[in-house]
């Protein structure tokens, strides 16, 4: 064998150790009990709020209601209009910073405990275990030829999965319309097309992603998985295998193998992993930091009378014996939490300062001005005033100006209908000899004549063909 040939053979041998999970094989993870399993159940159960969310009522209507046709978002006592949508960007920043901050401190907490993909997958596999049995039985069933029992079990499982998927889809759609009406419409097959489309997308997505693709979504579809991995640093605590303590791995220490480490190579950590990775190979992209391997390993260590924590949450620094710096001394944590606090401040300010009326005035451009028969110049404006309150507002429009521009008829009284924006026109007039320039700066004042006190001003211009200076 030539030297060249040999090196290629080595490459092949090397490649045998690559494990690229492309979903060729369904991962049937064993379920264990333990601390992190409990955390996962708790975090996952918070998603129940998602399912009951649409049924809350507030002031006679749905408490959480994203009213797309009317461009209003209702959250209990709060109504957010499109004009206030800048707060949404702050909410997104806040969520991003929470994700970044938590990731910098404790790794992919989101992925491991709270992500809808992993949580729904968890529910689906829990059902699978209840119906088809433990992983060994499941693999056997998968390989078995089709018979009445297999059909019955599979049908039962897929029906339950489908039910979860349907409830998930209906719940999502229910945030955008009245939930009771929606159920009625779905059940009577009388829902609008968009509702069916949303339902279909969610049912399909839930059923396929949580039922079949599972960890493949984390591996190949999820962008968060990619960005989260790059946010880890040497201070981040992650589920880590203590190789120093564990290696060399092998059967339980006894006579003749005293030099062995604590790892008894039972493979349970691999068996319980929902993404099928081997944590003992170190931090890797497939690991979603759910801690199931920690629970598994701890249970084994208890059995073989070794201290727990052969696999434990630990940082790269800690593994080399360096103590973790305090949270407030880490630049990443400081940066993320500062931005977080700024976003919170912005949102709090925004929510407490939503103006009751939003005013916008557009000067008519075609024509810029109209000359009337008595020589006066008229300008036309379109007033758009959104009344965000629940009551009609009686407002008075006037001009705050000494340049001789007035509203035709002095002032103008308008009624802004509750929760509506009905545009209206107003004409301003001026004698050309009073105007200093072709373009006169003016200010509209819109005031409430009753309560609550609302006073808005809006700058605009008055155009004329002639001015004094000409």
């Amino acid at each position, binding site marked *: 064998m030539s030297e*060249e*040939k040999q090196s*290629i*053979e080595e490459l*092949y*041998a090397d*490649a*045998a150790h*690559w*494990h*690229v*999970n*492309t*979903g*060729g*094989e369904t991962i049937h993870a064993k379920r264990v009990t333990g601390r992190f399993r409990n955390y996962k159940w708790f975090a996952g159960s918070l998603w129940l709020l998602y399912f009951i969310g649409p049924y809350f009522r507030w002031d006679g209507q749905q408490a959480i209601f994203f009213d797309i046709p009317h461009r209003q978002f209702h959250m209990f006592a709060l109504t957010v209009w499109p004009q206030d949508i800048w707060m949404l960007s702050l909410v997104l920043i806040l969520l991003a910073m929470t994700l970044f901050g938590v990731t910098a401190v404790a790794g992919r907490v989101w992925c491991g405990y709270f992500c809808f993909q992993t949580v729904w997958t968890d529910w689906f596999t829990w059902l699978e275990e209840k119906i088809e049995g433990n992983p060994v039985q499941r693999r056997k069933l998968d390989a078995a030829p089709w018979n009445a029992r297999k059909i019955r079990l599979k049908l039962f499982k897929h029906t339950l999965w489908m039910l979860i998927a349907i409830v998930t889809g209906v719940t999502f759609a229910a945030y955008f319309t009245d939930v009771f009406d929606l159920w009625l419409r779905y059940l009577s097959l009388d829902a609008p097309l968009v509702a069916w489309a949303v339902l279909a997308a969610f049912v399909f997505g839930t059923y396929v992603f949580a039922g079949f*693709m599972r960890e*493949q979504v984390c591996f*190949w579809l999820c962008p968060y998985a990619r960005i989260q991995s790059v946010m880890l640093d040497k201070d981040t605590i992650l589920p880590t295998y203590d190789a120093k303590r564990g290696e060399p791995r092998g059967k339980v220490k006894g006579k003749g193998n005293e030099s062995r480490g604590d790892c008894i190579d039972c493979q349970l950590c691999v068996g319980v992993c929902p993404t099928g990775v081997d944590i003992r190979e170190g931090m890797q992209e497939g690991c979603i930091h759910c801690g199931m391997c920690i629970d598994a390993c701890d249970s084994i260590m208890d059995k073989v009378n070794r201290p727990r924590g052969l696999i434990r949450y630990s940082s790269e620094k800690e593994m080399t014996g360096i103590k973790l710096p305090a949270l407030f001394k880490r630049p990443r944590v400081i940066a993320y939490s500062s931005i977080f606090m700024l976003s919170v401040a912005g949102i709090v300010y925004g929510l407490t300062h939503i103006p009751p009326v939003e005013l916008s005035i557009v000067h*008519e*451009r*075609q*024509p810029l001005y*109209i*000359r*009337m*028969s*008595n*020589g006066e110049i*008229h300008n*036309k404006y379109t007033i758009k005033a959104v009344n965000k309150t629940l009551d009609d507002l009686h407002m008075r429009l006037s001009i705050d100006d000494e340049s001789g521009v007035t509203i035709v008829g002095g002032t103008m009284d308008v009624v802004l209908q509750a929760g509506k924006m*009905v*545009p209206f*026109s107003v*004409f301003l007039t001026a004698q050309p000899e009073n105007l200093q320039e072709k373009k006169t700066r003016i200010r509209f004042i819109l005031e409430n004549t009753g309560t609550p006190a609302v006073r808005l001003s809006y700058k605009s211009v008055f155009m004329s063909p002639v001015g004094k200076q000409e």
Partner: protein
Amino acid sequence: MAKQDKPQHTPDTGHEWDGIRELTNPPPRWWMIAFHASWIWCVVYFILYPAIPLVNDSTKGILGWTQIKEFKQAVEENEAVKAPFLQKVAAMDGQALLADDGLRNFAESSAKAIFGDYCAACHGAGGEGAQGLFPNLADDDWLYGGDIDTIIESITDGRQSNMPAHSEFLNNDELNQLTDTVVALSQGKATAEQMTQFDDVGCSNCHGMDGKGGAINDLGSGAANLTDAIWRFGSSREEIMRTIRDGVNQDPADVPNTRIAIMPAFGGKLSPEAIKMLAVKVHEFGGGK
């Protein structure tokens, strides 16, 4: 561990170059699923929708979908939404329509497109007209009257005024004098002597003894108010003189420079409701009476 991860144990095609074997690993399953889903989608789409171009035509697809059908359907839906309002508009006269805030808004918005299609070419998108050519609809000077009913009448039946070409019976000096009179009128400085000439020439027959015109006078000519700041055909002395000399809507064969001012009748082209709504829009440009 999937078998494709163990190259030594994977079947190959028998091809080998420099020790590198070509393996027969299938593509990943998700890729194959996506691939099959894609071509199935393609076939289904080709069957359902117009797809394959032929020499003069294309395959139609069994759904019979076309863009124009979709458009027409959308138009129908839009019209169904508007229908109840249009019924109300049809049952109302112009005055009542103006007085109803909601319907007036509806009329103005609906008439926007009609105005753009039929009126804006001459009168401008905002009704500003074109100096000397087409009258301004936004001001408060009306040749035929600015109340809603008269505006409806103007749109329905059209308008065509008539002013004789005075070059036929006035000489140049007289024309100049008369032009001075009209300019003076607009400035409020016309003398009694000038007004006598105004009357003698016959201007007052249409424009009135005081030159203030009259929306529709006995002759129904829509004679202009000569005393205000608005000029139908231009405000310079030259333009005023041309109007007097060559008249309005004379036979161009006799008077080549005559002013042409013809508003076509839209009664046959537009429905009465459309005209009513257009009138509201014109009225609300700012000069309605």
